[in-house]
């Protein structure tokens, strides 16, 4: 029970069992197991889940990215604009992802070279990128409607599992390999755990951090592309608030705010848990303001439980 992830996974499974039992007992009143609801969940979780994977990797190296919400929107705009200009889908998606990586690298270089808190760097780039999106949106709304075969990559389904959710699972596996099984991932944990020591054993901690920033930007951009492929149009306000929700998912999933600790499974379960609670409230027809109240309460509750359990088991 030492690992925070064990607590949160247990909580998730318990909630899941309760919901399934209630849904089986009252199939008409509580449509948790209906195909529509499950499909909806699988489409809703990945957007924020993928962003949280990037934000989580960065958090493990000890840094934050508040610009992911803006990058998410900008990537959707870039994909739509390049595609509307007549270029193939592949180029449009490539440009959008590149923009995410470039913004991430700039965030990273400014943070490590100027040695300032990433909280500030990325709060600045959040506003700058948001401004660019506003400027782009002044020439009217943009749409991204690739051919049906291409769109299926982002919006289709395989054996009842929605494509975005397959993307989320696939990217989670990649993130798991990177963080828990690769040399670079080991360096990320060490840099986040104690940067001075990591540097003392010869790890290029600045480079590791810049790579993590780039991955956070890439993940946000990819989420933006998947989302616009599903919805078809981009609006300037759509990414607002995603950055804090992504951090909330990571914290619920047991990642330490000061870096060095966390698991990909935690991010995955955190994302599912957050949406599951929102979904249950919606199914119970709770008024909208309950959503924020519950998410806030879960965030603080999860951290209290994790801290308490970790402290107790280390005694």
């Amino acid at each position: 029970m030492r690992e925070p992830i064990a607590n949160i996974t247990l909580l998730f499974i318990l909630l899941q069992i309760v919901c399934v039992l209630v849904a089986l007992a009252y199939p008409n009143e509580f449509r948790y197991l209906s195909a529509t609801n499950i499909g909806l969940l699988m489409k809703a979780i990945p957007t924020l889940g993928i962003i949280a994977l990037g934000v989580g990797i960065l958090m493990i190296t000890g840094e934050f990215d508040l610009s992911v919400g803006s990058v998410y929107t900008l990537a959707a705009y870039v994909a739509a604009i390049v595609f509307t200009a007549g270029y193939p889908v592949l180029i449009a998606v490539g440009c959008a992802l590149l923009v995410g990586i470039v913004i991430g690298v700039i965030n990273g270089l400014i943070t490590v070279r100027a040695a300032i808190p990433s909280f500030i760097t990325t709060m600045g780039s959040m506003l700058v990128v948001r401004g660019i999106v506003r400027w782009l949106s002044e020439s009217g709304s943009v749409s991204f409607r690739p051919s049906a075969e291409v769109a299926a990559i982002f919006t289709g389904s395989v054996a009842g599992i929605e494509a975005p959710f397959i993307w989320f699972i696939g990217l989670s596996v990649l993130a798991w390999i990177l963080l828990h099984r690769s040399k670079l991932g080991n360096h990320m944990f060490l840099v986040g755990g104690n940067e001075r020591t990591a540097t003392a054993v010869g790890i290029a901690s600045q480079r590791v951090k810049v790579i993590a920033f780039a991955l956070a930007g890439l993940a946000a951009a990819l989420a933006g592309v998947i989302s616009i492929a599903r919805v078809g149009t981009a609006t300037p306000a759509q990414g607002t608030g995603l950055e804090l929700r992504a951090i909330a998912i990571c914290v619920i999933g047991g990642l330490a705010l000061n870096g060095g600790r966390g698991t990909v499974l935690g991010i995955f379960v955190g994302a599912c848990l957050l949406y599951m609670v929102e979904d249950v409230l919606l199914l119970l027809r709770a008024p909208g303001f309950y959503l924020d109240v519950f998410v806030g309460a879960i965030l603080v509750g999860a951290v209290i439980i994790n801290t308490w359990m970790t402290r107790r088991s280390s005694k």
Partner: protein
Amino acid sequence: MNAIAEQEHAAPLLELRDISKQYGHVDALTNASFTIGRNEVVGLLGDNGAGKSTLVKIMSGVEFPTSGKILRDGKEVSIRSRKDSERLGIETIYQDSALVGSASIMRNFFAGRELTRGLGILNTARMNEIVMDQLMNVVRISGINSPDIPVEALSGGQRQAVAIARAVYFKTAMLLLDEPTSALSVRETDKLLAHLSELKEEGVSAVFITHNLYHAYESCDRFTILSRGRVIRNLAKAETSVSELNDIIVKY
């Protein structure tokens, strides 16, 4: 051929010649000379601010001297980074910062020197095997039954043992121990001092930087005493005693 081999044998493992270091207008070290011989444990002594830490930082590549020469086996070298000192076989064990607390023993052991299967994927099984073998057979620490325990769950002595096992495994020629006993219990200190003499038998030299003259006297073969950035005495263990060392440090 023979002459070269002889010369190499005669030259000290590491020699610092007339090293000076200034921070702005402050002279941290002034013409300090210091040698580490083969199979030798040298005690680097002195009161606070004597320049011990600066000397260690210069040897481990964290700081660069303002003037002076560094020779490894009689050949002039320059130590500008942690990588340079690692290449010369120098490993520094700081009292607290040698390991990352939140990471596991294995991940600390191989930090920056991970074994991979190619493509940057860690060979976890092999690394776990090596770590356990080193901990059980080289430093023989008890109470560690898994390489996955986070370092923060270990005692101060166990942490030192992990750092020492790492230095031994990566074929370090010289260990620089900066105040290694300050955070240890009496029993752990005993064990550490025993490790030092074992390491010497295996051909690893060590520099022991400490305030505790009793610990230093017990484990060192020779003492270099610093005061206000200058080397004031060099004494072999046979020609001195704890009280004499104490007098020298207090008097200057």
